[in-house]
């Protein structure tokens, strides 16, 4: 079976499930009795198992299968959740993560059987069952044993005949009995959709239609609603009343394309209702239901001989599976998975549209014949393109949740590893960022959290001495601030010892002792972002290799963001990351320098000043201006860009004040053109030497203007 086309979906979903499991097991650790959590875990493990099985990843399947067993015992109240078990479960998740990584890299799950883990899981199981008496022990493993093989297994057991699984309620039983009295026949059907079928729901709908031509559908499993929402795997079962023969009903269902097989049989209502048949248990015993087999394929005909039964099943065994469909499913938004490339194309088209709109604006201004109507339409077009841009941007936005959700688990592990007590508080997980940013922000954040845990927080004894609560706190707060998203990592630990940093920097030769004398605390803390700088006295497993912070900084800068640190010795430190909401379209100020047009991102501009040449002072042979108590260095852009300024030197200077962190600079330009929404285009690999130009944009008249990167000028 060719499953490669589903690999992406499988990986995505596995990630989601693993994330979910991580979160749920963490909360289970806090609240071991919470049934909702346990149910949720069970469901996630079950889906994982199913998916791994479908994709043919046997090892992954076996592991999840054993995990699922443990959860199901927990759910039945046979085992109590304890710390040891949680640890084992986390190890299992790590192992699954490893499988997943292997699959992502080589589409093969690897050869690690994780036998010790499976053994531990089984130990937990046995430990739990020792406390419990009853038939569950025997029935359960066997019941599950039938399942994992998935498609192969249904050849030698009643697996394929899932209609036997359907539980009838009183009403339905009455209806069926009535029908039998009227001489109609009751059939159970299990329809199997072909594995490569993409629109399963649509096929199912066609099957429904086809069957309804000569029969009446009484029950379906999963429910009709779930089938419509595609909440079923490859098969669904129906109970129908019909005048027609079984063969005819089956033939009708089989007439639908992409239906692999339809199994059916006459249903014994009495038996079915009495036992609430469950396939797994039913398959174990001999039965009473007569079957008129409908399979055509030869290998499946063997299944005909196994006649599933409807005797009373061991109560404990059927409890778990029977609960499955009943458990309240989380409300899932209807979503479509879209390839990010398609979104990129869409975004490019929107960019083109904005350029075209800008052309139209400048064309109508040029022609001078702008009538009221044209202007109105242009304004309307402008508002439409702006909201279109916003919506497309929103489509690309995902909550940072998917990235930050793994952190509680990480902090928990760190806690054990470092022997410190700590707690992670997160807020604003629903803050949204561009998908590409969210994907890449995980590593820097992880570095910062590890730093906070390892270097920031003191050990419990020290904390006690200092009168702090023994349990250290780490905060991860995300929120939107104008056109930026701010992510803050805070801890209430020791803070940064600037003296130690300074000494270290001098020792490492990063700065000279004289320089150190004159540095502000701020400048010293910024030294931490230097490559190869670590103040931890011992290099630990967690952090302290000195590669962390400079990597953090460069990664965040590559996302056009910035990071700063605030710290108070003894009270803790906070790392503040600012990221732009979008990377593709920005508001910019267009300026003219020597008849060339340049764009400066509005985000970095503080104010625009009109300065008389007399106010320009010289400090260390460099031009500065004084502005509201600030001394700001002047940068004459025409010199930097090698252009002749066409302005009279005696005229007042137009100075654009830009800010980067706490630093200001005044950019001298010839003239201001105006504010404009611009689409950032890369200059390409070929022109990469020019650091001060961060990109280019196409103006309304088709001309290319370069975008100045104010950050590199300061």
């Amino acid at each position, binding site marked *: 079976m060719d499953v490669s086309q589903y690999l992406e979906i499988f990986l995505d979903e596995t990630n989601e499930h693993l994330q979910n499991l991580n979160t749920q097991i963490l909360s289970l650790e806090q609240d071991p009795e919470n049934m909702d959590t346990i149910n949720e875990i069970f469901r996630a493990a079950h889906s994982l198992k199913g998916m791994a099985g479908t994709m043919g990843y046997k090892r992954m399947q076996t592991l999840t299968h054993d995990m699922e067993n443990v959860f199901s015992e927990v759910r039945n109240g046979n085992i109590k959740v304890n710390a040891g078990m949680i640890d084992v479960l986390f190890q299992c998740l790590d192992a699954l993560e490893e499988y997943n990584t292997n699959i992502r890299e080589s589409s093969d799950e690897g050869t690690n059987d994780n036998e010790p883990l499976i053994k531990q899981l089984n130990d937990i199981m046995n430990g739990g069952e020792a406390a419990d008496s009853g038939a569950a022990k025997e029935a359960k493993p066997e019941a599950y044993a039938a399942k994992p093989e998935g498609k192969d297994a249904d050849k030698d057991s009643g697996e394929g005949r899932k209609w036997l699984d359907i539980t009838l309620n009183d009403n339905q039983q009455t209806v069926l009995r009535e029908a039998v009295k009227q001489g109609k026949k009751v059939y159970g059907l299990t329809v199997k959709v072909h594995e490569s079928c993409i629109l399963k729901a649509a096929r199912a709908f066609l099957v429904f239609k086809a069957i309804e031509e000569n029969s009446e559908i009484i029950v379906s499993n999963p429910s009709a609603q779930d089938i419509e929402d595609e909440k079923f795997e490859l098969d669904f079962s129906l109970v129908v009343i019909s005048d027609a023969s079984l063969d005819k009903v089956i033939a009708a269902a089989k007439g639908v394309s992409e239906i692999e097989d339809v199994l059916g049989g006459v249903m014994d209502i009495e038996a079915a209702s009495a036992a609430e048949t469950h396939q797994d248990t039913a398959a174990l015993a001999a039965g009473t239901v007569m079957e008129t087999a409908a399979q055509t394929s030869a290998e499946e005909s063997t299944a005909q001989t196994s006649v599933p039964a409807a005797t009373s099943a061991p109560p404990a065994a059927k409890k778990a599976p029977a609960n499955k469909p009943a458990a309240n499913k989380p409300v899932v938004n209807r979503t479509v998975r879209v390839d990010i490339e398609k979104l990129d194309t869409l975004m490019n088209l929107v*960019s*083109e549209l904005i*350029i075209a709109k800008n052309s139209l604006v400048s064309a109508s201004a040029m022609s001078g014949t702008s009538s009221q109507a044209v202007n109105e339409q242009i304004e309307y077009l402008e508002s439409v393109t702006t909201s279109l841009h916003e919506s497309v941007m929103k489509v690309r936005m995902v909550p940072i949740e998917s990235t930050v959700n793994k952190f509680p688990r990480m902090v928990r592990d760190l806690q054990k590893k470092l022997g410190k007590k700590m707690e992670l508080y997160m807020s604003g997980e629903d803050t949204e960022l561009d998908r590409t940013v969210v994907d890449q922000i995980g590593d820097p954040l992880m570095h910062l959290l590890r730093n906070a845990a390892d270097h920031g927080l003191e050990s419990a004894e020290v904390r006690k001495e200092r009168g702090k609560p023994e349990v250290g706190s780490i905060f991860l707060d995300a929120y939107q601030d104008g056109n930026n998203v701010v992510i803050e990592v805070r801890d209430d630990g020791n803070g940064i010892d600037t003296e130690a940093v300074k000494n270290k920097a001098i020792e490492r030769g990063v700065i000279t002792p004289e320089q150190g004398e004159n540095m502000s605390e701020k400048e010293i803390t910024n030294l931490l972002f230097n490559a190869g700088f670590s103040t931890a006295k011992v290099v630990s497993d967690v952090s302290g290799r000195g590669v962390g912070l400079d990597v953090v900084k460069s990664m965040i800068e590559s996302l056009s963001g910035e990071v700063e640190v605030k710290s108070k010795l003894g009270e803790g430190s906070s790392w503040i990351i600012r990221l732009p909401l979008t990377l593709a379209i920005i508001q910019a100020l267009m300026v003219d320098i020597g008849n*060339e047009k340049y764009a400066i991102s509005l985000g970095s501009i503080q104010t625009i000043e009109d300065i008389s040449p007399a106010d320009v002072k010289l400090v260390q042979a460099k031009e500065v201006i004084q502005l509201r108590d600030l001394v700001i260095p002047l940068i004459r852009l025409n010199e*930097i*860009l*090698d*252009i002749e300024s066409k302005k009279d030197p005696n005229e007042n200077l137009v100075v654009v004040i830009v800010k980067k962190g706490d630093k200001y600079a005044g950019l001298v330009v010839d003239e201001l053109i105006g504010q404009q929404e611009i689409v950032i*285009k*890369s*200059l*390409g*690999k*070929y*022109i990469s*030497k*020019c*650091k*001060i*130009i961060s990109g*280019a*944009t*196409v103006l309304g008249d*088709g*001309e*290319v*203007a*370069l975008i100045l990167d104010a950050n590199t000028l300061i």
Partner: protein
Amino acid sequence: MEELKVASETTQFIVIQLGDEQYGIDIKYIDNIVRMQHITRVPKVDAYLKGVINLRGEVIPVMSIRIKMGLEPDVETKSSRIIILKMEQQGTIGIIVDEVKEVVTLENDQIEKIAYDSKDEKDNFLCGIGKCDGSLISLLDLNSVVLENV
């Protein structure tokens, strides 16, 4: 050329004029030929990089093949064109030429390989000489033409 033979041993070239000489560019690299347009200067780059142009919304760097080859700087005329090349490594690049003449199809035996030991820098940009109807066409080795000066 009136007849274009499509056989395995033929290559098509676009013949361009640079100064007094005719050069051939392998057609498989050519994406487009556009008229001269306003080139936005990019500061702080090598002199042969003239700047960037807007080609249907894409920003594309343009280089002067004359400056790169050590010839006189370009003089923009009515027949000046920008040839847009699609290179595997460098992506899309435009080169300025004086004139685009024609398309020729050369059989492999009409192409003479040139020895690589030439000291003359100009020759480093050629990959062969094509003989066509009695005239000689210098075939440009585009990879070395667009290669960045280190």
